[in-house]
């Protein structure tokens, strides 16, 4: 069983989504994703103000063995990229659901409802299906 906080939503492409009190959402990659990538050496996050579509690549996480895109789970406008990750990409490995958040986004009207987000149990099924 992976580390999957119950208060978060997930995507098939291994992002997590946390709804914040002000109606914006915080986005990161799951514990499973950071584990698969290995030690991160570089993280590129989007600038505030960028408008993204759902499933648009908007961040890059790079480990010693791979570089992967992170997709916007929800359409909207970026309100912040995590500034800490430029100097400390390893925060994503150490604390993927906390200090290692990648970006915050204000969902476009209706986008949150339209997004195909998964519950922890549904995401666990995705992970189970990946194990061969």
């Amino acid at each position: 069983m992976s580390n999957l906080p119950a208060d978060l939503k997930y995507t098939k492409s291994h992002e997590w989504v946390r709804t914040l009190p002000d109606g914006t959402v915080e986005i990161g990659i799951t514990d499973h994703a950071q584990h698969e990538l290995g030690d991160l050496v570089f993280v590129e996050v989007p600038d505030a103000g960028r408008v993204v579509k759902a499933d648009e690549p908007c961040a890059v996480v790079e480990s010693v063995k791979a570089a992967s895109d992170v997709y916007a789970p929800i359409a909207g406008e970026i309100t912040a990229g995590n500034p800490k990750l430029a100097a400390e990409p390893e925060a994503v490995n150490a604390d993927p659901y906390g200090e290692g958040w990648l970006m915050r986004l204000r969902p476009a009207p209706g986008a949150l409802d339209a997004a195909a987000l998964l519950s922890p149990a549904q995401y666990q099924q995705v992970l189970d299906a990946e194990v061969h």
Partner: protein
Amino acid sequence: MAFIPHTEADVAAMLAAIGVARIEDLFDEIPPELRVGLLAGVPEALNEMEIGRLMSERARADGIALSFLGAGAYEHHIPAAVWAITTRGEFYSAYTPYQAEASQGTLQLTYEYQTMIARLTGMEVANASLYDGASATAEAALMAVRANRKSKSARILVPTTLHPHYRRVAVATASNQGLRFEELPYGPQEGVITTAALVPYDAEDITALVIQQPNFFGRLEEVDALTDWAHARGILVIAVVNPTALALLKPPGEWGTRGADIAVGEGQPLGVPLSSGGPYFGFMTTRMEHVRQMPGRIVGRTLDAAGKEGFTLTLQAREQHIRRAKATSNICTNQGLLMTAATVYLSLMGPQGLTRTAAAAHARTRELIAALTRVPGVRLAFPGPYFHEAVLQLDRAVAPVLKALAARGILGGLDLSAYYPELGNALLVCATETKTSADIDRYRGALSETLQGVRAA
């Protein structure tokens, strides 16, 4: 390494293993209309003896001309040791090896190359080389679009003082990826970019400005002012530089207040013979803050598990074998053998040797220009500082003059009329350290006699 071709039995066994009858069937997914088939116009193959004879005849027909051609490729003296060392079996490869870390000597040499190029350009990091100067310039434009995250326009300002072929290669390589190349005119009196040309772009969203130094006319651009103008507007600066000239000129890393962001160029002057236009190699450097946007291979120095120094490919996650379609480039082949020659050349020359070469080339060009502009009907097109090339203006069409000179064994320079029709009868000439005073006198005499013989316009 042994060269062992597959036998017919090997091929049959491999085809049987994958259930394919003929090698041809491996390509059956390519639609017939896309296949070239026979190459019309390509003659039957020649055997080794026949091709040797053909090439000797062609070489005899060309003769050994006295060349004053530059325009992007430069004749320099290459010490014999350069290619004696470069063609040793240990170095004789066009690529970084596929099992790279097993070839520590090759990686160390590449690392030394990167260090030399970074120091020559005054930049922080160099890659292991690119295809040539033109494609390095195109790659620099693509890189600038990735690196300049404040600019959304993907507009690249390209002065017409940049080599015309480089401009065409940049457009061919990058325009389908959404880049827009906008041409900046040069000052017709000066032959350099003037501040007046920049005024229309003062408040525009521009991603990068390309500056060639020395420019295509051989003239020196006001690199400090141009760089500062660009940086004040959030525009990245791509320097396109001649590596020999860097021994005398301010390196791009020191242009203006902050230095250029990316510096590229043609590496051919560093120990690579002219040989009909190639193979040459391109070099590329940048600042550390942009290193993840730089295409190509990069060798790093590290320590192994036992604490011993070693060399390894680094930052590979940007590259096509890992990032696939999203790699920083998919045409960033490096020119390992030419890069090896450049490393040996720079090692032999040292900073002093390169400075003396550059100073000699400059002095010879001054001597050439002084001699040729004494010929009636010849004048210097653009007064002002130049390095080892300059544009001459003739009082009649250039092509027949060059033809008459060629008949006397002299390549008199490049006719600019096709590239810069507005310049009229313009001729780009070059002299390097390979030319003697006697050579220059021979050219002057031949030009003088030719102009008396060729009818004035």
